[in-house]
């Protein structure tokens, strides 16, 4: 069987920013693949580099202060980093498009919605005004805006938050992109509106076969939307797996921590939540070992010194953790009780209470 070419492949991408306090390693060696039609969830907390990674893909990192010291961004085998600005412009907004987090600030308040929707069609498809108008109105209808021809010539402020996000989605899909990048598409929305937008995105993806990268901090959103998930922490991917497997059997202590710290509506009130102690690190200083080690129950002396290599705990499942196999085998996913997780974390902590000689070889 011929190997399919990934729609998007990142190889060891690095995006740094020069600041007064030194070089911020916002993205520090990220690699992943998105196959055609697949949806990839990128999960992480603020400052984990999940958005900067995707903005780099679109070539929208302000340079300076940003710079990309290394890596490749392959869109269907072509390196976007080596492409001329003109060529990149032909791809961006056309074959790759983006839905931004905040529908309040990402539409131009001075321009009618019609103008903002027609523009991408005129630029990328050379359509005349009438054709573009007809196509744009059709798309507004498709994303569920009532009375689209009447609303077409209104300004963004005349739309509610949910409706504005629909306009954004319509705009992103006008040119039938192969890849859609959605950065926290529902974070600014209320939960019933979020449900509407997520259902819409699922429908459209089913109909159009678009590849999707969805960036979010909400584990519930990726659980319903993503085929595969990468978990980011301090500018690096710590774990990647198929969505179900990640939730069922995480192989990184940070993933375990995330799953356990979030209360679940469909379960009874937990006796107590298990938080991840401490707080995310400052990425403006180089971190020699694993960035999560200071907060990790499983951390050994080695973890503080050396960034762990990719451990393949199962075919297609990678975790960057010195103790990945142990964590994986403990089965600390959604089915594990809080007591079980605490027991294993205690054992893990005790097992290296006395500093042992790190094992080499």
């Amino acid at each position, binding site marked *: 069987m011929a190997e399919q070419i990934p729609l998007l492949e990142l190889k060891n991408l690095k995006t740094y920013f020069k600041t007064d306090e030194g070089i911020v390693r916002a993205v520090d060696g990220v690699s992943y693949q998105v196959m055609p039609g697949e949806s990839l969830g990128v999960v992480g907390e603020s400052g984990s580099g999940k958005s900067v990674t995707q903005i780099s893909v679109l070539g929208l990192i302000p340079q300076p202060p940003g710079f990309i010291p290394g890596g490749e961004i392959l869109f269907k085998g072509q390196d976007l980093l080596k492409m001329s600005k003109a060529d990149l412009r032909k791809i961006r907004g056309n074959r790759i498009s983006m839905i931004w987090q905040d529908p309040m600030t990402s539409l131009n308040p001075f321009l009618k919605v019609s103008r903002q929707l027609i523009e991408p069609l005129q630029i990328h498809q050379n359509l005349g005004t009438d054709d573009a108008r007809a196509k744009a109105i059709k798309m507004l209808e498709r994303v569920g805006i009532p009375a689209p021809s009447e609303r077409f010539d209104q300004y963004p402020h005349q739309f509610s938050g949910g409706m504005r996000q629909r306009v954004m989605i319509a705009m992103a899909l006008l040119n039938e992109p192969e890849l859609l990048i959605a950065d926290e598409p529902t974070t600014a929305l209320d939960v019933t509106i979020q449900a509407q937008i997520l259902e819409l995105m699922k429908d459209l993806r089913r109909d159009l076969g678009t590849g999707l990268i969805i960036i979010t901090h909400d584990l519930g959103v990726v659980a319903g939307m993503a085929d595969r998930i990468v978990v980011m922490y301090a500018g690096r991917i710590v774990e990647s797996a198929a969505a179900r497997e990640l939730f069922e059997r995480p192989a990184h202590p940070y993933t375990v921590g995330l799953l356990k*710290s979030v209360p679940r509506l469909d379960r009874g009130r937990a006796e107590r939540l298990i938080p991840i102690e401490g*707080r995310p690190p400052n990425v403006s200083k180089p971190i020699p070992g694993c960035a999560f080690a200071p907060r990790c129950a499983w951390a050994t002396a080695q973890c503080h010194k050396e960034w762990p290599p990719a451990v393949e705990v199962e075919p297609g499942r990678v975790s960057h953790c010195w103790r990945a196999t142990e964590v994986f085998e403990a089965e600390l996913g*959604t089915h594990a009780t809080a007591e079980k997780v605490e027991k294993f974390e205690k054992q893990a902590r005790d097992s290296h209470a006395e500093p042992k000689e790190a094992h080499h070889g």
Partner: protein
Amino acid sequence: MDEVLLEVRDLKMHFPIYRGALFRKEVNRVKAVDGLNFDIIKGETLGLVGESGCGKSTTGRALIQLYKPTAGSVKFKGQELTTLTKRQIHPLRRNLQMIFQDPYASLNPRMTVGSIIGEPLKVHGLADGSNLMKKTQDLMDIVGLDPRFVRRYPHEFSGGQRQRIGIARALATNPDFIVCDEPISALDVSIQAQVINLLEDLQSEFDLTYLFIAHDLAAVRQISTRIAVMYLGNMVELTDGARLYERPMHPYTQALISAVPIPDPEVESTRERIVLSGDVPSPLHPPTGCVFHTRCPFAFEKCAQEVPTFKEAEPGHLVACHLVDEPKRRFEAPNAETDAQKRAAVAAMRKAWDIPAPTPQ
């Protein structure tokens, strides 16, 4: 017998809209809160959920008289608060405190942490001189902040730590009642659990009563004894946490709960979601009758005409819905957009009223 700490009757909070400079005339009013009746029991956490603009924060503020309510009564330990003058209310304020949503905006950046936490002690004459410093540092210790940082400024702390500063300030006067207005919304996932646990610990240690306002239903369920659901200035349902999730009776609560994504792909793949159509109407022109009728899958003629009373559908379970008196209409959802939507809506109703689905022949 449960002791009622706060008794709220017919509470209304309207914000008038004026037009004209010289002859200012009220042209309309935003009915942010429009007639609430509920009690808060001593020692409980009452969760207050709803979407943005439903009036939950306004309710919190009106309870502790940060706003002067338009109408209605709020009694604290039997004492009427709404008729008190500013001077009369001042000594009571030490018993009624608030934790704010945004830990960045709610702390004065020019004040040290010590003076922020110590200020309520000074204002209420509870401590001065060296005693003040000691008490302030004790409070910092209680909320998990290093007392040595007493002379630092808010910008030197992370979001989670700032929220701890806000909590320490609220605790300073040893209050009976604290309104927690979205205290975790601005925090990272891994930090939210820390703050929830802290609030729970403080509650049992200092015998506190909370009104916990949030839009995150899972977090509210974790911390609350009872939960109240608001929609467009009205309370639509109020019962204990487990029951509200197991058997929500109001169609809005049902939709709200079904809209919350569950962080588990297995669960997500089989869920039938009730997706509400449209947006929340404007509180300037709320719909007649039941305010939810414009989006309700079950609405019938009466709903547009008559305001449903907020009453017990079963002991300890208050609901404002005409379906309580119309058992037959619980299984017709004439306004559902699709058949799938109809099925989901009726299934939720069956579960709420504990009526088995008819077995197919």
